[in-house]
């Protein structure tokens, strides 16, 4: 059946797009894990917090207005101005850099040389804190995020491909937002690669990723690097927050996208940026195709969540360090 086949292709394409969105989240994890060996559970909350901050600035919301109103009995809500998207993004970025600095200063600095599980726990504590803090600062109602990226099916693609599969085929459906996300993700990755390959800081980053102690001994400030890495991860979180926030509005559930990134990380390896991208694509395509071919017709649907993990699990059994992870060498 040709129409069925083309729909399969459509699901495949949409899986790729979804994979890009997962990769965006996974990138933040990889950056931090590579540079400091921390599995940063708070990455999802960072995306939420960044998006909340962005919308807050755009709408001219007064931070902590709810708390202030409750204490002083005032009726504050908005400053009354609207910031253009571009400046709001810059302002949100500044906040994320400050955030990175604070995290290093207040948490990481005190936890140097701890076991990975302890650092992981610390980021969970951070996630808890940020969850309450973000809501307290900007309120927990849903916010519409609009920075001018068009949304909706791309009609041009739809109409120009409709002839392919006969009368039962309506053309390929691709979300314009997803197409933008793909380009933005590509630009982001290229920028990251250029940054890490051709700038001094980037080289320092890679040195730290290779060997902490050797990097320290040649005079690289580990703490400065950590701030930079967390700031970059904050920036990636902002981009992910914008993309996901535009889809569904900015609210608490946005932080749960971290759970979508975990199988991507397993598959791609915690230490590899290309791994995060390719892992994302595999997971995205895999779960969408499984839902299309087996999940929805045979198993009653909603299989995507566990299928992603199952793929990663089965994969890991054969390659325990992930697709691009560093080979695990064990010595007694």
């Amino acid at each position: 059946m040709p129409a069925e086949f083309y729909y399969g292709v459509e699901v495949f394409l949409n899986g790729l797009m979804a994979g890009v969105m997962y990769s965006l989240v996974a990138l933040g994890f990889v950056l931090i894990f590579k540079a400091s060996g921390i599995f940063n559970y708070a990455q999802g909350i960072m995306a939420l917090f960044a998006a909340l901050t962005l919308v807050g600035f755009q709408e001219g919301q007064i931070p902590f207005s709810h708390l202030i109103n409750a204490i002083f009995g005032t009726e504050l809500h908005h400053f009354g101005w609207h910031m253009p998207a571009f400046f709001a993004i810059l302002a949100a970025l500044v906040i994320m850099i400050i955030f990175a600095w604070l995290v290093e200063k207040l948490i990481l600095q005190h936890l140097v040389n701890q076991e990975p599980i302890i650092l992981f726990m610390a980021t969970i504590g951070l996630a808890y804190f940020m969850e309450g803090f973000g809501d307290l600062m900007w309120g927990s109602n849903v916010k519409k995020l609009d920075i001018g990226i068009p949304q909706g099916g791309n009609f041009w693609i739809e109409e120009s491909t409709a002839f392919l599969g006969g009368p039962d085929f309506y053309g390929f459906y691709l979300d314009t937002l997803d197409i933008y996300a793909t380009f933005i993700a590509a630009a982001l990755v290229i920028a990251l690669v250029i940054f890490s390959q051709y700038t001094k800081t980037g080289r320092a980053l890679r040195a730290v990723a290779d060997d902490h102690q050797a990097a320290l001994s040649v005079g690289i400030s580990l703490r400065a690097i950590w701030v930079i890495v967390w700031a970059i991860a904050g920036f990636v979180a902002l981009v992910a927050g914008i993309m996901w926030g535009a889809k569904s509005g900015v609210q608490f559930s946005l932080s749960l996208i971290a759970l979508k990134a975990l199988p991507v990380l397993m598959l791609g390896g915690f230490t590899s940026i290309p791994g995060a991208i390719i892992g994302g694509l595999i997971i995205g395509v895999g779960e969408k195709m499984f839902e299309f071919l087996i999940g929805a017709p045979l198993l009653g649907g909603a299989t995507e969540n566990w299928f992603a993990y199952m793929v990663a699990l089965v994969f890991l059994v054969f390659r325990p360090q992930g697709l691009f992870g560093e080979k695990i060498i064990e010595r007694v």
Partner: protein
Amino acid sequence: MFYREAGEFKTSYRADQQTFPIGLDKLGFYTSLLIAFVVIPLTMSEYWAQAVFLPFLIFGIAAIGLNILTGYCGQVSLGSGGFMAVGAYACYKLMTAFPDMNILICVLLSGGVTAFVGLIFGLPSLRIKGFYLAVATLAAQFFLVWLFNKVGWFYNYSASGQITAPERTLFGYVITGAKAETLPIYFVCLGLLVFLAVIARNLTRGAMGRKWMAIRDMDIAAEIIGVNPLMAKLTAFAISSFYVGISGALLFALYLGAVEVGEAFSIQKSFLILFMIIIGGLGSIFGSLVGAAFMIAMPVILKNLLVTSLGWPGDIAAHLEFMIVGLMIIVFLILEPHGLAMLWRIIKEKLRIWPFSH
């Protein structure tokens, strides 16, 4: 001065090998049992029983279970929520399929079923290690929740997929269903917790525990000196899941009474139990209980303090609650990364040498 390890003389191997060789420890153990079995039941109010003590006892069992796996055997698991669901649904199926079966047997059998499921999901641990394993256990979490939500047989095809515990009695007391009384439930949970904790304590200091710890410290080295990693890891998974399953069965049958899998056994539960053992202290039964107490009681106490005593609006209090719990986790990790159990060890040390500094 206050805590003396010296001056205890043992004349038999038996006396030397007992669980609490030091007199003061033994005293402390029996005192806490006395408090738990007599003082608390006499003094607790319905609210504190329901809000703190029952969840503490139930999650205490789960925390001990996860600590066996993560603290003693070094295998990080984020699938506890899913395993609790296995316990709960096994218990429900047993209760409805065999109405005459004693509820305690149901609960223990559900633990057995969970142990078997845990065994299966533990198999990949032979290949996958560290964080990769942690994330891999999430596969169990998501798959099990999906399964119980999807397959009607598990919830007896009820319209909404909720499972509701039918009424069962133990020694004439109603402990599940609508007419259940709090005090008998408390005693059942407490009895099980003490029983299971003692078993866990003895398991971990026996040959099996030593094998687990050898695997945790370095599995390759352990393998070389003759520990079978297959056996060690799988027994850890099975026994840990047994505990977690019992906890899930209790949570459903005795505490909540009605359960919906996606909500009650979500990934949040897995994280909660992991928090408990890390805050409490990895590789310590005492730590598991302290951690459970902390994670259960802390939000309730904060809520009471902020909302009831200070009269703050519930939502602001809830936000602050999150912030404070998060901060406390971070502060604890910075001050004492090895958990509250380590803190207790340090205190003991201080008490021993007091009033001198060395």
